[in-house]
């Protein structure tokens, strides 16, 4: 059944990807701004030279033809050449991807390790000051825009206090020979503690910014499901058995309460992808999100198209992962 479901999911991807491609294509075509003009900037060129460049990039064809060509090539795994980099789009994306994955993972871990204990605590201390404060806090966390919270952190910790760096992923003087391309992991694997510390100091603020909303949501989910689970008959029965309180709380209640938390975490990771664009731009993080934003300004059509397709595939896959996790955590649902 798993394999069948997997194939089903893959099949569902086809219309999603087609639709997403079309929408992105239309939006890019309809937004004012001409990639050729942007590329040439202030350079003086003859109309012939400009025409040649336009032909080179395939921009002299009518839009519907360009779309069909794009789809045709994409089906063969060719997503075109980045206007700006003059290299295959896939290559450029692959270079930027590890930074984004690293940032997303750290944000997720931060969100999970703070949200789960706080959610459990809020449930156990229901209706106390702590519970109410955490409710207000998580509401703020959900509703605070990324850019605003990010800039706030940046101003305070980087600009005023100088505790943490303003931008980037690691300072230039640190060299880490790549293994996984995740700097935190590689620097540890290479035993380069100084580089690890430097990379860590760079990732803290963007990861906090990115993880805030997710953490707030996960905390609420954990609190709600803990409250529900603590009323369940099996928790009462566990109490009737005379088990220790921590065992009832963490083994009987939390194991069940985490099912929705983990599922929502997988789904929310898809949302983090969107947040990446803003956060990476604020913190000068050399990842995919910032690349996409830059490419939009450059009217770098092929790169934007490919990146958005990549996001869409990732999003659908994360949904699928959420399903799988739910099944694994919940023995009642058979694979």
């Amino acid at each position, binding site marked *: 059944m798993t394999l069948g479901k997997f194939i089903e999911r893959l099949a569902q991807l086809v219309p999603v990807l087609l639709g997403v491609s079309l929408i992105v294509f239309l939006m890019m075509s309809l937004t004012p701004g001409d990639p050729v003009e942007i590329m040439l900037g202030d350079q003086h060129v003859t109309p012939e030279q400009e025409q040649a460049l336009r032909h080179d990039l395939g921009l002299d064809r009518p839009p519907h033809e360009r779309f069909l060509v794009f789809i045709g090539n994409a089906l063969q795994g060719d997503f075109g050449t980045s206007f700006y980099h003059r290299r295959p789009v896939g290559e450029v994306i692959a270079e930027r991807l590890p930074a984004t994955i690293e940032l997303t993972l750290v944000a997720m871990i931060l969100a999970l390790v703070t949200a789960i204990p706080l959610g459990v605590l809020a449930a156990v201390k229901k209706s106390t000051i702590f519970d109410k404060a955490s409710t207000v806090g998580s509401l703020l966390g959900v509703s605070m825009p990324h850019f605003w919270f990010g800039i706030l952190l940046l101003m305070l910790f980087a600009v005023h206090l100088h505790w943490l760096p303003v931008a980037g992923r690691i300072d230039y003087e640190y060299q880490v020979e790549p293994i996984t391309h995740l700097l935190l992991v590689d620097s540890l694997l290479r035993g380069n503690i100084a580089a690890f510390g430097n990379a860590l100091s760079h990732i803290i603020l963007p990861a906090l910014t990115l993880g805030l909303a997710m953490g707030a949501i996960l905390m609420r989910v954990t609190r709600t499901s803990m409250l529900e689970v603590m009323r369940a008959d*099996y928790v*009462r*029965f566990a109490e009737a*058995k005379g088990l220790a309180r921590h065992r009832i709380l963490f083994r009987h209640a939390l194991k069940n309460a985490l099912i929705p938390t983990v599922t929502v975490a997988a789904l929310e990771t898809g949302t983090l992808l969107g947040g990446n664009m803003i956060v990476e731009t604020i913190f000068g993080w050399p990842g995919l999100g910032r690349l996409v934003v830059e490419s939009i300004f450059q009217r770098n059509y092929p790169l934007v198209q490919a990146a958005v397709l990549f996001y869409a595939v990732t999003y659908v896959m994360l949904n699928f992962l959420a399903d799988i996790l739910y099944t694994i955590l919940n023995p009642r649902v058979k694979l």
Partner: protein
Amino acid sequence: MTTTTLPRPDTAAGDRPEPVLSVRDLRTAFKTSHGIVRAVSGVSLDVYPGECLGVVGESGSGKSVTFASVMGLVKKPGWVEDGEILYRGRDLTRLSDRELRALRGKDIAMTMQDALTALNPALTVGEQILEVLRAHADDLPRGRAGRAEARRRAVEMLDLVGIPSPADRLNEYPHQFSGGMRQRIMIAIALACRPRLLIADEPTTALDVTIQAQVLELIADIRARLGMSVVLITHDLGVVAEHCDRVVVMYAGQVVETGPTRAVISDPKHPYTQGLLDSIPRLSDLSHPIRPIQGQVPELIDLPPECRFIGRCPKRTPDCRTGIDMRPAGPGRAARCILVGEETEA
């Protein structure tokens, strides 16, 4: 206060040992948005060593809350307002959380009303039975030997309640067992530490008739083997008639009648007990009409001092407006009805 000292049921029956459990004037309330619900108001009862005591009454009469109070499991918004719960002479209402935890599951065990939801769906059956052994069995050796011994006892217990090839099934989850099997597993867990007192809250309600009979037989069998006392909570007087030595009839948070099962059933003193009897089908006489008691259990908020059954009682008199205490009604018997005294006088 309308505290009643129950006549000792044994006064006529000869020497009886001290009760295992003795509840005295228990009051448990819940705070709700409509007001304070007095779910249990002044319940007194005794459970003697080795006996099976039936606690019977319609849904909502306070049976579960009474024994949740005994177990110290009443949670906010509820609380035990007053009363004594004496377990072998110790008042459980005065024990600390830690002392209560040491008793729960070891000395006094309870099975829940719904076996299908009482087992944790995310933990294996083996873990759920082993954890109670580990929590209480102080005699288990440490380390590997202790784990092996706990496992042996778990398998033995599951075998005792009739789970086929129990050793192979320790790693399975509750959903992999049938409803009847889950009921048995819950009983195995409750009995794992060989308690002196088992409180079985409606052990058969969720089961179909044949399995009901099997589970009740099982409890009776284990009671005889382990020599424990059983409190069988049920809304079915038929079950009580078949399995219990004595019976406590509860209505609207109070005990309304108590006595030896056979005597109570052949000659009920309280109109409510009579009503319960009339509402069960009789296998011996299928033409006998089933007459359910009309009306409903009153809301347990701001109740006047009058007899709580007054609204539904076919024999009510104007005198029922005053509060009525339990009255002696024959050997080992008592009932909360003004007709009791008059009957004997008449």
